[in-house]
């Protein structure tokens, strides 16, 4: 199941910071690789020794049960030593900068650092300052590349072709890194992207992405193959960006009535965690005929295994001669 010893490189750079910089080949390469890991994940023996001896650090500045555990499991299934660090309050409040934290971690010689941060650009900043590979697990409102990849894998495994596929992304596009990564990925792969939501949650220049923009769910969903719902953060629900959750649900919450405007057999996706009764009705979310939300979680682990695998292909092999030579330097 694990790839051949002299595995061919998939990513052109040593990091996965976003979808925007990836080529169609890189995306396809990751999806193909992930297919293998879906199969591995369903086998009795779920482990591969691919990353044996490697250290993967999960550095999460924002709470995220889902993404963090998904990366953790992916690392463990590949045989790596995985360390979880939640830096939500501790060091930052002591006046330590992100760079200080990074420098400290760097000294522990990780091979791959997975980072989630509330600020856009944080992953790119760490990638510039650290010696190891960096995978972006979500930075501010910028990108969440593994989410877009797992969404793509889910779509592809449902037998849908990206070319000409109509995908409606609905909700809080303004603050959403999931939306941005998905817009990049789906557009690159040839899909037609629509964005639907109130104008307070839509960037003013959003049409510059080459997407269609709608405010009305019925129009936005009309004929869509995929309906992708975005999570609405609690603090944005009551008066700040929309007047109330019930008003939001009335106009942009996905229920059976609105879904009926999409193409028959359209798939419903959500990056989770869901706000039931806000952006999505339970009746739709739990309907296994249309909702692939649980499948997305499974694909998440496979994609993250593929990402770790792809990143590790760029790591120096053996005893890290380059790093041994640097001993004694402060990095």
């Amino acid at each position: 199941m694990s790839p051949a010893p002299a595995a061919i490189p998939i990513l052109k750079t040593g990091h996965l910071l976003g979808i925007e910089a990836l080529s169609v080949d890189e995306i396809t390469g990751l999806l193909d690789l992930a297919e293998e890991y879906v199969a591995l994940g369903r086998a009795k023996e779920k482990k591969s020794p691919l990353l044996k001896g490697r250290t993967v650090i999960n550095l999460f500045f924002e709470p995220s049960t889902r993404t963090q555990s998904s990366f953790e499991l992916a690392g463990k299934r590949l045989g790596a030593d995985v360390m979880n660090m939640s830096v939500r309050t501790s060091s930052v409040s002591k006046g330590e900068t992100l760079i200080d934290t990074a420098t400290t971690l760097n000294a522990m010689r990780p091979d791959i650092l997975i980072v989630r941060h509330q600020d856009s650009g944080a992953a790119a900043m760490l990638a510039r300052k650290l010696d190891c590979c960096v995978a972006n697990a979500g930075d501010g409102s910028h990108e969440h590349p593994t989410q877009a990849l797992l969404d793509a894998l889910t779509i592809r495994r449902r037998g849908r072709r990206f070319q000409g596929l109509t995908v409606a992304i609905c909700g809080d596009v303004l603050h959403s890194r999931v939306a941005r990564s998905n817009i990049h990925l789906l557009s690159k792969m040839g899909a037609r992207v629509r964005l639907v939501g109130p104008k307070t949650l839509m960037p003013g220049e959003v049409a510059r992405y080459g997407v269609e923009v709608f405010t009305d769910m019925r129009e936005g969903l009309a004929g869509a193959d995929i309906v992708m719902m975005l999570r609405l953060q609690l603090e944005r629900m009551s008066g700040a960006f929309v007047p109330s959750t019930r008003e939001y649900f009335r106009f942009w919450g996905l229920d059976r009535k609105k879904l009926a405007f999409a193409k028959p057999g359209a798939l419903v996706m959500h990056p989770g965690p869901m706000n039931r009764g806000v952006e999505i009705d339970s009746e739709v979310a739990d309907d296994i005929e249309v909702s692939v939300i649980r499948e997305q979680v499974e694909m998440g682990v496979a994609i993250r295994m593929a990402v770790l695998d792809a990143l590790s292909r760029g790591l120096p092999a053996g005893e890290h001669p380059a790093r041994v030579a640097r001993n004694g330097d402060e990095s």
Partner: protein
Amino acid sequence: MSTRRTVFCNARLVDPASGLDAKGGLLVENGRIADVAPKLFADIDRNDPEVIDCHGRMLAPGLIDMRVFTGEPGSEHRETLESASRAAVAGGVATIIVMPNTDPVIDEPSLVDFIRRRAEATARVRVLPMAALTRHLAGEVMTEMGLLKEAGAVAFTDGDRTIANTRVLRRALAYASTFGLLVVGHAEDPDLTEGSAVNEGEYAMRLGLPAAPAAAETMIVERDIRLVELTGARYHVAQISCRASLEAIGAAKARGLPITCGVAAHHLALNELDVGPYYTFMKVKPPLRSEDDRRAMVEGVASGIIDVIVSSHDPQAADTKRQPFAQAAFGAVGLETLLPVALSLVHNGDCDLAQALRALTSSPAKILGLETGMLAKGAPADLALIDADIPFVVDPDKLHSRARNTPFEGRRYQGQAVMTFVGGECVFDRSAENRT
């Protein structure tokens, strides 16, 4: 000031105040310009120790930078008056106007006095403080403007804060006009810009950064124009950065209102795309705008609607800039790049030399009521000897400021101050520097 005689010969005298641009000489006696004229000292012995041969280079009034933030008092690790003055002289700047945004805030006559004394004791340039317009910069209660003026404040401003309360601002403007004082405003709507880091637009959207529209600036400019109309106060918008603000000020000037405005050098040279991959040294206030807005700023300097070019020098320590973009501090150092950026407009053919230099010398002098900023008999001998053609690359390690946060790193410019004089005293000599 100096009692020595200094003779400048073989100079290209450039004085925007009088329109002079000719080969000639200049005589300094007792710290003041005793004579200045075309063809003066053409035949003088250039080896005489009191003679400075300018070799045909430009001799202009020392620059006046109307917007400089330092860290003294309160955060001297960023910049002191002394370190700012070293940066100033290396940029041909002879006078810096320092902002009251310090800790404590300069809102008391004794603190104005502190700045003046401290500058006299340590700084190489003239340091003129602006005092706070409202106490603690809180935007609520006006300061003792009359007493602050007596202590030496040249104008009144809340620095990089906009006064949100129009009632407070109206009264402050009216009170200031009682004494004919100058009020300087910062134009960014505080609510609309709260939490924002960059200019709203496509690039900000792609980076996923919190952004505010340029209209947040223009609506304050327009609001303040109305209040000036109401009160008759002399009002200067410290920095504008977008086309719509330029148009609003142009229209107000055409109506004869006593309004002037400035632009920061970085808004003449950079646009929002220079933020690049979250480059925090590009995080300034107001933010870098679109290319069309940048073009408008250049046009504004050329047309004279923009009166003044400032550095908006704002030194930041490494730790506040080495942060994720949204958390990083605003501000860029600029004293040493002010003149090169202004000269780049001339080299690019966007603006004539006199116009660019006017915005750095006679125009701020006139707005502030200073006797410097011109090459006139009897004026203080604040001079900048400028090699307008010398090429160089901006190297942060060679800056004289205590801080290194220049947005111009690695950029190529043409033209630098080679010597700077304050009150006839040579306070900077690039050739001496290069020897050491």
